């Protein structure tokens, strides 16, 4: 067979490489939505039956309960370090009373949901991909299908639901511990007045801040669940394929969290502006 001209021309080779990568991307993108559609479609039937709950609750334990310590720790340290970084500036302006309120607002709006999401992606997302990927390469997914059980319903829907519902709960833990951490450093290290700390928090932080953070975390959790499960279901054979899929899950979940955060931030701020107008924080 004569060598095809396309392959010898570097530019053409680059072109064909890019176009095949693009084709692969769109193929995966399409498959991902079909996969997600199936997983979501089974939510109602899974929630009515007792068996659905028997599958869901253990997942909640593995994904949620096991993540609580690490998320509480992350939250605490972030709350602490924000006070450390903000103290000098606020002190110079004579506004240390308000520092706590600023820190808690940023925790509720951004840091709580994003950090809880990232920790969930790292701890639970990787584990989900590894588990489902192993099931994939050892033919367990095929075995499920061959016994007339739908692997997406059995494996993906409960994991997706657990990630979706637990992300906001874990965010609450991160917010709470961040606030306590901030208070400890504020009062314990810098000797700030405790009463204005709490007073200004009640004056500044609104239900909207807490609510929009939790709302965003719902999306983060959902994205983590679907991406991790999808990668597990579609990993290459062998231990190496599973390992790669795990890394990929974390990277993609992480990027998705940040992208969703930006997008939802824009939308939610726009809504706030329309409904309530501008709000000065200080």
């Amino acid at each position, binding site marked *: 067979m004569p060598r095809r001209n396309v392959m010898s021309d570097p530019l053409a080779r680059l072109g064909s490489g890019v176009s095949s990568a693009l084709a692969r991307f769109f193929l995966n993108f399409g498959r991902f939505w079909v996969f997600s559609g199936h997983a979501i479609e089974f939510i109602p039937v899974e929630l009515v039956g007792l068996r659905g709950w028997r599958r869901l609750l253990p997942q909640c334990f593995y994904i949620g309960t096991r993540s609580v310590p690490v998320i509480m720790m992350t939250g605490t340290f972030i709350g602490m370090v924000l006070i450390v970084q903000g103290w000098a500036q606020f002190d110079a302006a004579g506004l240390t009373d308000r520092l706590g309120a600023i820190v808690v607002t940023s925790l509720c709006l951004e840091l709580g949901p994003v950090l809880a999401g990232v920790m969930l992606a790292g701890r639970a997302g990787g584990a989900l991909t590894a588990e489902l990927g192993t099931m994939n390469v050892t033919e367990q997914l095929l075995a499920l299908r*061959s016994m*007339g*059980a739908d692997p997406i319903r059995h494996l993906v829907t409960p994991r997706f639901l657990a990630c979706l519902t637990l992300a906001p709960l874990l965010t609450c833990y991160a917010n709470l511990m961040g606030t306590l951490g901030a208070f400890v450093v504020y009062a314990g290290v810098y000797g700030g007045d405790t009463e204005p700390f709490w007073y200004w928090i009640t004056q500044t932080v609104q239900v909207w801040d807490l609510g929009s953070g939790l709302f965003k975390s719902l999306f983060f959790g959902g994205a983590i669940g679907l991406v991790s499960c999808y990668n597990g279901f579609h990993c290459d054979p062998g231990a190496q394929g599973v390992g790669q899929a795990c890394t990929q899950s974390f990277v993609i979940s992480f990027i998705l969290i940040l992208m969703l955060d930006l997008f939802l931030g824009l939308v939610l701020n726009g809504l706030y502006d329309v409904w309530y107008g501008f709000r000065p924080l200080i």
Partner: protein
Amino acid sequence: MSDNDGPIIELRGVSKSFGRQHVLDQINLAIETRKNTVIIGRSGTGKSVLLKHIVGLLRPDRGEVYFEGQQIDRLSEAAWVPIRQQISCVFQLNALFDSMTVLENVAFPMTENRRGRLDRDRVRELARRCLEIVGLAGFDPKYPAQLSGGEKKRVAIARAIAIDPPPKVILYDEPTAGLDPQRSDVINKLIRQMQATVDVTGVVVTHDMKTAAEVGDRVLMLYSGHFIADGTPAEVLRAQDPRVRRFAQGTAEPSDISSLLAEQE
């Protein structure tokens, strides 16, 4: 049932390719009821692919698959469920669920498909009986990771028969691969026993000539996409075709050796 004398499973002109690789090329195969049909062939010739077409885990590019006279290759995943309750698989890697005990694994097809019509005690009792049949009584609380290769295979066989009513067909994918000769013999006897006691049609895929000879009523050899031998085990062992003879005797093909030598240079 419908037509007891006709073939229980029939493949007509089934072709399957993955990209440019043509794995199955116009396969015709009629599997007789209550006989063990063995498909032999070198690794990578598409034996597992062929089996997966029978349970709808892969769809043919061209051709049709029939189960008891009903065309099944175009069914939706939901419509496959009643068919799959009559055809069980023993996978090459066993595919036991790691997170479940042996008993839960064996009980799984029953708890899944019967929609709660069997109560839990009855399911457990049936699962225990299936474990007894494969000689693993008392293994219920163990996890798959705690079992040897042969024991895992036997659990997989127990799971395959653990549906009520019992399956009409069991597909075995390389049931003796990776087992020592003694344990292979146990599995071979078990496959024969399934045929006799559970009255099931067996389709066995293997690259082990000994297994083929022991469990097979009919042996076919798959070679680059189609069958090049078909007959009783004795007939296939006596075949004149050099490709079949080399497989039966376990000698390499000249082309393999020349490519090996080419690699060394």
